């Protein structure tokens, strides 16, 4: 009967306009220096497991945020580019529609949420993610005593056989909203910072509410430099990148 009770209220709304918050992240590629502080920050915050040498050799490292490094040109005209890559939180996420059990879904605040305890591990979402940013727990992650003392109590430790990915530090978002609610106000720009944005030494990562037209992310997203990765795929990511400048200072 409870099921029927639930059926009475069906909310269908366009989070882009109707919701107070729509979280977005802007990454300035011109600023990113590939130092990897964000990678460790994310790992520390989100209980991301280290898998060890052998598993790394099988390309099973779990970093939710990785820095992709591309090389262009031939010696001596070599250019190295860094591209921080994490879950893009697509508005039209390819991963969401293929999950048979709704373990990944879109939440009203524009985030692509992975519910670990719902996941059965078909890995279809991973196949359909053009950015390849979903990571699978091939084994139970090992946090042996006493390393487990570092585990963040806000984030669950994932079991073997489930997908995981960047959550934009939803525990921080939740806490930020919680604090704002306690103080009887809306979340303001800068209240909430995911671990990577918080720690980025060069300030390449900015996080905020893109529905707030006064926010930094809104302004940056409309700065003309903003691009989405694989724009032609129509995924409409919530993570946007600011293109680097030109390289032709000196020939």
């Amino acid at each position, binding site marked *: 009967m409870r099921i029927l009770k639930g059926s009475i209220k069906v909310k269908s709304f366009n989070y882009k306009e109707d919701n107070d918050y729509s979280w977005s992240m802007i990454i300035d590629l*011109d600023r990113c*220096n*590939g*130092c*990897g*502080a964000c*990678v*460790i*920050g994310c790992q*520390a915050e989100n209980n991301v497991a*280290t*898998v*060890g040498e052998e598993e*790394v*050799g099988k*390309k099973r*490292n779990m*970093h939710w945020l990785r820095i*992709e*490094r*591309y*090389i*262009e*040109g*031939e*010696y*001596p005209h*070599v*250019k*190295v*580019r*860094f*591209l921080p890559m994490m879950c893009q939180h697509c508005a039209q996420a390819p991963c969401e529609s293929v999950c048979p059990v709704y373990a990944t879904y879109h939440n009203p605040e524009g985030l692509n949420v992975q519910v*670990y*305890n719902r996941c059965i591990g078909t890995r279809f979402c991973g196949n359909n993610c053009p950015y390849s940013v979903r990571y699978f727990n091939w084994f*139970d992650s090992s946090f042996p*005593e006493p*390393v*487990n*003392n*570092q*585990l*963040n*109590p806000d984030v*669950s*430790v*994932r*079991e073997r056989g489930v997908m995981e990915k960047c959550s934009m530090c939803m525990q921080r978002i939740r806490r930020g909203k919680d604090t704002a609610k306690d103080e009887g106000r809306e979340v303001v720009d800068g209240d909430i910072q995911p671990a990577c944005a918080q*720690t980025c*030494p*060069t300030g*390449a990562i900015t996080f905020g509410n893109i529905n707030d037209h006064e926010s930094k992310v809104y302004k940056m997203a409309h700065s003309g430099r903003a*691009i989405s*990765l694989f*724009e032609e795929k129509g995924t409409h990511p919530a993570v946007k*990148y*600011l293109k680097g*400048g030109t390289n032709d*200072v*000196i020939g």
Partner: protein
Amino acid sequence: MDRRSFLKLSGVAASASAVGACSRVSQKVIPFVETPNDGANPVDGDWYATTCRECNAGCGIIVRTVNGRVKKIEGNAIHPVSRGKACARGQAAALSVYHPERLTSPMLKGAGGFEAIGWDKAVDILSQRFTEAEGKLFFLNNGSNDAASGIANEIFGKMDGFVSAGNQEPGFESLVAGGESLADFPRIPFPDLDHAQFAILLGADIFESGPSPVFWGGAFGECRRGRASVRGRLVYAGSRLSATAAVCDLWLPVPPGRLGALALSVAQVVVEMIITRKLASSIPRNALGRWSVALKEYEPEKVAAQLELAPEHIRKLAIPFVDESPSVVIAGADVTGYANGVAALDAVEFLNMLSYEIGREKLRIHERMTPEPNDNLKRRMAEALGVPHEAHGFSRLTDLVAGMEQGNFSMGIIHHTNPVFDTPTGLKFKDAMAKVGFTVAIANFMDETAAEATLVLPDHHWLEAWSAQTPDFVPGVPVFNLQQPVIQPFFGTKSGSDIMLAAAAAAKLKTPADTTEAFVTGKIQQFRAEMQGAPAYLSDNAFRRHLLREGGWWPAQVEAEAAPVPSGTVLWEYRDKLKAPEPEFDGAENPFFLHPFQTVHMGRGQGANSGWLQEAPDPITTLMWQFWVEMNPVTAAKLGVVEGDMVKISSAHGSITAPVFPYKGIRPDVVAVPIGYGHTNYGKLANGRGGNVMTLLGAKRDAISGALAWRSQKVKVEKAEGRMKMLRNAHPEGEYKGEVFQL
């Protein structure tokens, strides 16, 4: 009841069990014995301000603890070095507190190796040795001015025969020594990258091995995109395209040891431009004329050949240097790593001064420009917390080793540094150490040096310990960093400095305080009057708490500290120094230049036992858990090796074998090897992972400063047996297809 008392909690059981486990195992809920002060949120956790001690940069950090456990390290937003940020190594400290291989009990080397002894016995032995040594001892730390070295200095400093030395990161000493004639107080130059529009990085791997990668990161961010309409542009010159070079707009592969010539050549063009365009009116015209003459031999056309660049390249560096003022030049390891390093640094400084004169209003010039009086607060703070900076160089270390060889010391204390591993084989530290009768290693882990020591004292992790530190490498401002325990000691360790104090007291030596905490408090009181900006009405204790809350003391407004630059009279002094000597190399008959470099994760090898850091992909190679040698694909082809093939690199001092990583961003005559690998006694994760590049190095030193010239080694490279799977994150073909993102 101070904040430590409620660290006594053991907390609501930490959540480590797997998802989906909802068994009916009776879980315990263990409350505090003493209620924490009101307002604390036991789940949100408490944030404590302290100082990161993973390297000597002295970043202010805040640490989140929940239920008495360290959870997360973040930058302290008000700290002038970290500016609210933290690097990978700093953040990984949260894991190293709980490292299963931490030492837990004092160990004395006997006939059958180390055996655990109690703390009381350790203190007894130590105090007995203190008495016997009669001051003939040395204290060696990692080159930082912190409470431990301050305590050692105050106990033994006045005794004859006591030597305090620091095993500093290579390169700093030269930076300090460069242009020492200009200022009395030597320190690392910090050109104002924040406000620069154009920057030339001369081999400066500021994000990897700079004094503070975090500080430089912030500066770079500001330079690049901090201003609305200006995009700062950077050019990197050096023999390898490092991670720092990768973010620069242009890379000029200059042969090793020639960057001084490049700087002078740029200076030549700049001086000519100043003359023809009548810029920089503050420079006396006759000085310009002299410089012009002195720099004649560095005309781009004349040096282009030895720099392996086209003359236009040099011009194209110089022209924006003037046009896009303000601009700065930053020198780094590829300048200081050669025997002509300090000479080259003079040229760099000369360029920086020219830049300042051109863009006078726009640039906050770096600190070394400011001749400071001897009683400068920063210097006094540094001395109060240890030895003056010049004592921490390689020269002092060389002297120390010589003293050890000669049997000048009957005892040595090695505090959180690993010279057996990270000093060049040519220095022969290990052999010298054996000649010292009794060595004490104060360390967190059993490392190569601790293994050689007679007594090993397991120290607190720095997150569990009291200390204070003054960073040498801060632009323009005196900083007094406080380090406080954010958790109760997790293992049964004791603070090394506390033990020193206790042993000294037992040996009836004069001790500055009973505990490190008291020592730090005393130092705060000592400088309180000069610590501007803190509320004056606070009681001493309240003031201390105020500082603890903030993480230390520094002037509230960093900008205000920027002192005006000395005018042309100082520049005038440079007229005779504008020379770039030929680089000299150890093992010059060998075909390849060895290019040891630091990576962002390993440091000097301290990071090697951290799972997080080992698994974090290196920015350039994206290798994980692995040691490698970089060489140009052309070189690799000549040697007949492909990625993963083992090569043997050998010099007169030793040899290492490593898998090849062909990398286009490196000169064909250079092989680059990362520092920090090849541990032999540093725990499961670090041991046997590659080779230690330090074994290849002799102790070649800079001609002027005596600093270690750690890149002036030439080596032989030959193909060796075997292959190794390269644990890359990037795909070897895919990494060249970045254009799919249309960035």
